């Protein structure tokens, strides 16, 4: 039986309310990345020095917002989304729904869209605030930037679904999420930018899903375009993760 628009609307409204009732969600997905962007940008003078390697742009125009966007996306993808889904499965909510005319796939879809929207909202808010406070220019190639952002989000969320597919309990998925989260941030260049990494480490990093995403985001902010290898890697990782997740996801 097809799901109807009023059902999806009602489910979306309920899931959004539940999402916003968790103060931690707003803090980690929205507050923390934006606050770090503003605080680090203001407190570390090097971030505001024009860099010839970036075509005269400052790290606060390129690397810093790219990493903070990644922080928000990966928080949603590796922590919030899988935790909600596994908790729903663990508590019998997905099973309960599968006895109604509305399939639990709908909840998964609504949760995906909700988390994508949250990461997108954070990105836009961050770019606007960075522009107002530090004169950070808006992305010079808005279409390419949006494309890379969406592709990176989709591949990150596919990996989040993969975690949800394999984790038997919500505690395990939280641990698993963190175990993937921190190395992913490292490979993305959160602590050591790719440009400063030893060659071997940089090559390995850029092959990982988050490394390719981070590199492409920095590139598109700095130059207005990204390397096709990074784009292909994001698409490839995303497709593999999505296929495996769909194959192994349990509803009961």
């Amino acid at each position, binding site marked *: 039986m097809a799901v109807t628009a009023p059902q999806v609307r009602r489910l979306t409204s309920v899931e959004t309310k*539940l999402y916003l009732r968790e103060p931690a969600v707003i803090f980690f997905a929205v507050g923390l990345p934006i606050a770090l962007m503003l605080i680090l940008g203001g407190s570390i003078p090097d971030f505001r020095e024009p860099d010839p390697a970036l075509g005269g742009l400052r790290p606060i125009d390129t690397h810093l917002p790219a990493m903070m966007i990644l922080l928000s996306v990966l928080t949603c993808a590796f922590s919030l989304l899988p935790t909600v889904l596994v908790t*729903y499965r663990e508590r*019998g*909510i997905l099973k309960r729904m599968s006895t*109604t*005319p*509305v399939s639990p796939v709908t909840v998964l879809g609504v949760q995906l869209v909700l988390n994508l929207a949250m990461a997108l909202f954070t990105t836009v808010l961050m770019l606007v605030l960075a522009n107002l406070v530090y004169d950070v220019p808006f992305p010079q190639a808005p279409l390419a930037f949006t494309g890379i952002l969406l592709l990176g989000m989709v591949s990150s969320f596919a990996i989040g679904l993969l975690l949800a597919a394999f984790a038997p309990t919500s505690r395990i998925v939280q641990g698993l999420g963190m175990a993937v989260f921190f190395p992913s941030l490292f490979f993305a260049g959160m602590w050591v930018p790719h440009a400063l990494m030893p060659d071997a480490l940089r090559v390995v990093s850029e092959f990982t899903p988050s490394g390719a995403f981070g590199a492409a985001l920095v590139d598109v902010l700095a130059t207005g375009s990204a390397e096709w290898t990074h784009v292909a890697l994001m698409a490839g990782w995303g497709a593999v993760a999505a296929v495996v997740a769909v194959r192994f996801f349990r509803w*009961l």
Partner: protein
Amino acid sequence: MAIITVQNLRKQYGDKIAVKDVSFSVEEGEIYGIVGRNGAGKTTTVECVAGLRKPDGGAVHVAADLKQQVGVQLQESTMPDKLRVGEALDLYASFYANPASVTELLDEVGLDPKVGFAKLSGGQRQRLSIALALVGNPKIAILDELTTGLDPQARRETWELISRIRERGVTVLLVSHFMEEVERLCDRVAVIADGSVLAVDTPAGLISRTGGVHRVTFRSTVPVESLKSLPEVHSVTVEAGQVTVTGDQNVLRAIVTTLPDSAISGLKTETSTMDDAFLALTGE
């Protein structure tokens, strides 16, 4: 007319056979009980009826739309902690083509729509669960172990609620291991053990199958060996000074005419219950 027919149902998980051979049929409008110990196969059986699991053998026929017309209360199923009662009911009502009135349901189960799920007591959660099972205006409600873990007061309130469900014309399939619950609510009962049906009967029918056992307990100051030879008596046991005698309906008179009046104290009599019937059937 049978609204649910289950024939030779078989279901296994890996090597473990959960349901070996279960057959029963439920008539429209009745409250039908499925009883058995933990692990007897009750939940698997009703999950097959609800369409949640695919049988490995046999047939399940339900004369209703499984999604639209069968309301389900699952064992150990919960809601998100921060979801409010009213939101849960509105949400589930929106899933169905012909939902019941949420206001009336709230009234019937006596819940405050503004309270979040995490703040509900065990009894309130079960009442919400029942309301959710009824919100689609179902023809059939499947209720799995809904009073397990409730205090006696909450259990009684839940039973009253279920009695009222019948008045709506809803057929109820009730899974339980509480014999008192089954005796009170059910028109007919299937007793399941080790994945097979041992007996199907009315609660009264099941009780009378055990021969209408009467049990008398008392304390005696004289030996009670002489009771064993009486034709009315089935068994005599003495434990820590407490004498328990079982027998037919005349057992009490036999005891008081055999033993001296002054020797007997603390006399109590019980007639057999569903508990006895269940224990007799399952061989304990």
